[in-house]
């Protein structure tokens, strides 16, 4: 590139108007000069001019090629393309808006999902240089990452030079903080320092804190815990809270988005040195506690050499527990993402397909719209082609238009996804059963990956669905177009019908899912589990040393009407044992209950009696369910029958935790009505009930409360946490019953919203296509009317335009739904799914298909009426 070249380019760039004027003058001069020459040769002025112009050829084309020489063509072409595109949008603002809004809705739906996936698969965190973080793990895929004892961790830090520094993570525990359950993670004091993240309020722990006598009696809240429990109140800083009964200070609050290197972060972090204090009853020697070690790899150390150093170091460790470090240790990258991304992708794929269908329908609408508009633009493009614009320029122009639409749609999609995320998370949190303990949902943050995803998808969508019809428009004959003959027979009827078919297909599929979920939810809410759920609660007893005191408090509490012992508790599976009646052995499920159990839960004893208070686990009596009684003693009264019950021990396997059952001969004293149990939570009640009492370790308490269950639960929590600050959950049985329908409801609303969007888009798409067709065929309709066609025939004529693709869409949608249902039932989860969701519910299919057909008819209504109102005289006069 010479200096002159640069100067010329700069001039063209900086003073584009002057450069353009010069170019125009230069070319115009040539034609004028040629004209003068011809006149001088004796030609008439007018003829001379047209001859001169003919000899020169296309002036704009030559000008374009001159511009190409200056190398700034790209820039000023773009400027011209953009301004031209904006003018084009200004001329047809409604259709540009339709394109943007339609694609934005679909994009927003997909972006919602991608934002979630992004948080799980890719790191969205504040940890600097996260790629240097490595965890010490065993090669086998194993959930237990706590491999080293605390002295070993200290030795590793002292003796190796693998990490610049490493921290230790102890257990993640659900602890009561001022009576409310919160999740805490126990970490070594250098945790925040190694990660390189500091608090937004107050301060985090530092290694210096550990050296103080008694440690640093404080916790650091995550943004999640701060928001969930303290409503982001800055005054909590420095407040003393009772964590599992131990007073600790809230020292600091971490920034939003920081969750440590776990997929879902805890509510707070506490120093590892406090663990023995907080877990007084489970205290073990510090040497027994194993921790997970994560460190920042020293710069310049490769992962391989670090692994080798680690192995060498391990082998020098004296007294390591042989079964723990038997395998070679290795370093595994820690990015705080899901350890098994493929599983997440497997879960997300069907969701992506469902959400993607909305985008697909939207795109189909856009394509249809542009196909219709393509005819209108043929004249414009034809004129430009015949004025000498090259096809490349026109394609560039159309691409610029698509790109502008794509960017606007991406911005719209971002707004849609944020609003949808905020709303859906808010809704889910609000309607979630409160006492499920600790399910917290954050609105995931969007980052550059989400932005990239939006823009890329928007460009792909507009390129496919907006550019294709536009390109088709350039494949026209300028001469015929100029003569006003639009290429109507090039009308891409097949493409349009395919698009309608796809839309109807997607709507039908999504709607069938929605109705199936709705009907299953209704069926589930009517389901009677066979036990009283309205005012009963389960009080988990997880802290054996406090059992006696707790029972005393429960017995005294005015909120409790009656209570009984049960093991396993109502949300656990009963044990499995073997009943030997002498006639043969039968596997039976059993659980331990106290005599009040049947009364508390309203389970009728149909014959015989329940356990007396004096009958404890040593008494040789049992109560059986009706179905077990029928199975073991057909046609006989089971009361008074004797049989041997023993644990179901497989040879060679250690006895399960139900070893509490001693093999013995028992007598049936009562028969209880069958309890169907909960299906979603997969809780079946037992067939055999063995006596126990609340004072027996590992039993839970099930109680019937007085008055409002919510109020009673709160009172109980207040009273009982005073007795045992570390007590387990109090679960309302009503919540468990609601769980039966909760997820079905979520699935229903989710698929209903998607199906609604799909129907809306399909309806508007059909409306657009039919209006266009009616408009295009006004003359034909007029002729038919003039020849005496009835309104009914005309209606049928319009409807017949789309009846075939609609039918195909319905058949394909229902067919795919049925095929998916069949495939789903064939999977290992099929039985479980079939019990909860009636995937082949014929009524759901019928209702959905009717709704889709109804929507299509509704969308056709206005165009049909317009066709029927055509005035034959006027129609024949229209061009």
């Amino acid at each position, binding site marked *: 590139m*010479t*200096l*002159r*070249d640069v100067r*010329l*380019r700069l001039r063209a760039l900086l003073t584009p108007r002057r450069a353009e004027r*010069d170019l125009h*003058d*230069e*070319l115009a*001069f*040539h034609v*004028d*000069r*040629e004209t*003068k*020459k011809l006149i001088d040769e004796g030609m008439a002025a007018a003829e001379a001019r047209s001859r001169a112009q*003919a*000899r*020169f*050829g*296309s002036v704009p*084309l*030559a000008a374009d*090629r*001159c511009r*190409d*020489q*200056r*190398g700034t063509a790209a820039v000023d072409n773009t400027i011209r393309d953009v301004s031209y595109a904006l003018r084009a949008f200004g001329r047809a603002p409604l259709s540009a808006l339709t394109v943007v809004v339609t694609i934005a809705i679909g994009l927003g739906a997909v972006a919602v999902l991608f934002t979630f996936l992004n948080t799980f698969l890719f790191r969205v965190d504040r940890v600097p240089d996260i790629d240097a973080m490595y965890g010490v793990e065993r090669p086998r895929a194993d959930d237990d990452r706590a491999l080293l004892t605390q002295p070993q961790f200290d030795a590793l830090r002292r003796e190796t030079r693998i990490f610049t520094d490493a921290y230790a993570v102890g257990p993640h525990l659900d602890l009561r903080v001022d009576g409310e359950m919160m999740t805490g993670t126990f970490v070594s004091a250098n945790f925040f320092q190694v990660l390189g993240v500091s608090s937004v309020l107050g301060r985090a722990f530092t290694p210096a804190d550990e050296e103080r006598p008694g440690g640093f009696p404080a916790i650091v809240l995550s943004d999640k815990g701060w928001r969930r429990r303290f409503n982001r109140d800055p005054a909590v800083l420095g407040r003393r809270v009772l964590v599992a009964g131990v007073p600790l200070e809230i020292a600091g609050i971490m920034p939003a988005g920081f969750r440590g290197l776990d997929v879902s972060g805890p509510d707070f972090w506490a120093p590892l040195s406090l663990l023995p204090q907080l877990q007084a009853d489970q205290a073990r020697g510090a040497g027994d506690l194993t921790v997970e070690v994560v460190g920042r790899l020293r710069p310049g150390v490769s992962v391989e050499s670090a692994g080798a150093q680690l192995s060498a170091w391990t082998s020098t460790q004296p007294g390591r527990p042989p079964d723990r470090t038997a395998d070679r240790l290795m370093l595994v990258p820690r990015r705080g993402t899901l350890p098994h991304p493929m599983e997440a992708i497997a879960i997300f794929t069907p969701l992506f397909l469902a959400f993607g269908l909305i985008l697909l329908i939207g795109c189909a609408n856009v394509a249809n719209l542009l196909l219709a508009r393509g005819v209108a633009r043929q004249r414009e493009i034809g004129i430009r082609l015949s004025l000498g614009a090259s096809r490349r320029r026109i394609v560039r122009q159309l691409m610029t238009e698509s790109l502008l639409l794509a960017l606007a749609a991406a911005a719209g999609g971002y707004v849609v996804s944020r609003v949808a995320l905020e709303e859906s998370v808010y809704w889910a949190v609000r309607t979630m059963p409160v006492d499920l303990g600790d399910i917290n949902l954050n609105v995931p943050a969007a980052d550059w990956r989400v932005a990239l995803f939006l823009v890329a998808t928007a460009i792909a969508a507009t390129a496919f669905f907006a550019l294709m019809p536009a390109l088709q428009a350039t494949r026209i004959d300028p001469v015929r177009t100029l003569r006003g003959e639009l290429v109507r027979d090039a009308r891409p009827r097949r493409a349009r019908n395919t698009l309608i078919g796809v839309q109807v297909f997607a709507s039908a599929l999504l709607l069938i899912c929605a109705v199936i979920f709705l009907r299953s939810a209704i069926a589930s809410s009517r389901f009677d589990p066979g036990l009283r759920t309205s005012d009963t609660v389960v009080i988990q007893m997880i802290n054996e040393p406090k059992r006696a005191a707790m029972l005393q408090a429960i017995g005294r509490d005015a909120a409790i009407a009656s209570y009984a012992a049960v093991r396993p508790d109502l949300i656990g599976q009963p044990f499995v044992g073997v009943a030997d009646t002498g006639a043969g052995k039968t596997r039976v499920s059993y659980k331990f209950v106290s005599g009040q159990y049947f009364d508390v839960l309203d389970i009728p004893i149909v014959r015989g009696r329940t356990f007396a208070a004096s009958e404890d686990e040593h008494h040789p009596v049992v109560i059986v369910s009706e179905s077990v009684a029928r199975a073991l003693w057909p046609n006989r009264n089971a009361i008074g029958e004797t049989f041997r019950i023993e644990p179901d021990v497989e040879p060679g396997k250690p006895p399960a935790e139900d070893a509490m059952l001693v093999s013995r001969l028992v007598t049936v004293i009562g028969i209880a009505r069958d309890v169907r149990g909960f299906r979603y939570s997969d809780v079946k009640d037992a067939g055999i009930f063995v006596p126990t009492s609340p004072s027996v370790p590992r039993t839970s308490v099930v109680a019937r409360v007085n008055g409002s269950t919510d109020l009673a639960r709160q009172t109980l929590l207040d009273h009982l946490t005073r007795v045992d600050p570390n007590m387990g959950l109090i679960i309302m049985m009503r919540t468990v019953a609601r769980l039966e329908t909760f997820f079905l409801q979520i699935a229903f609303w989710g698929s209903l919203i998607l199906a609604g969007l799909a129907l809306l888009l399909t309806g508007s798409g059909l409306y657009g296509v039919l209006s266009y067709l009616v408009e295009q065929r006004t003359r034909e309709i007029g002729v038919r009317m003039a020849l005496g066609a009835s309104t009914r025939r005309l209606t049928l004529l319009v409807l017949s335009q789309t009846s075939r693709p609609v039918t195909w869409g319905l058949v394909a949608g229902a067919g795919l739904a049925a095929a998916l249902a069949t495939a789903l039932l064939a999977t290992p989860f099929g039985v479980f799914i079939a019990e909860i969701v009636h995937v082949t519910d014929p009524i759901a299919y019928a209702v959905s298909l009717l709704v889709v057909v109804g929507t299509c008819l509704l969308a056709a209504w206005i165009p049909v009426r317009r066709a029927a109102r055509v005035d034959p005289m006027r129609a024949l006069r229209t061009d």
Partner: protein
Amino acid sequence: MSTADIMTRVPDLLPGTLDLLILRTLRSDALHGWAIAERVQAISEDVLQINQGSLYPALHRLEHQGWLDAEWRVSELGRRAKYYRLTAAGRRQLAFETREWERMSQAIGRVMKLA
């Protein structure tokens, strides 16, 4: 007669010869685009007609390459017109391309005579 007809009757120039013709035409005087085309046509006795659609892109290209310099002057029509003249680099390029051309035409001439 349509534009297309005229264009098809013009014999195709050998590739690269358009640049040579322009440079050679401008060796002594500064000329505007029309005069360049006119002079080539006159001297070649109407055998060579420069396709005017490609003349101006070529002029602009040579200008960007630094072989031509352009200035606006008042023309014989009394209007301003863009006059091109050779630069020093253009002269060197002309000398080079002339040698190349002679070598090529001698070679072709020999083949035509002897082959």
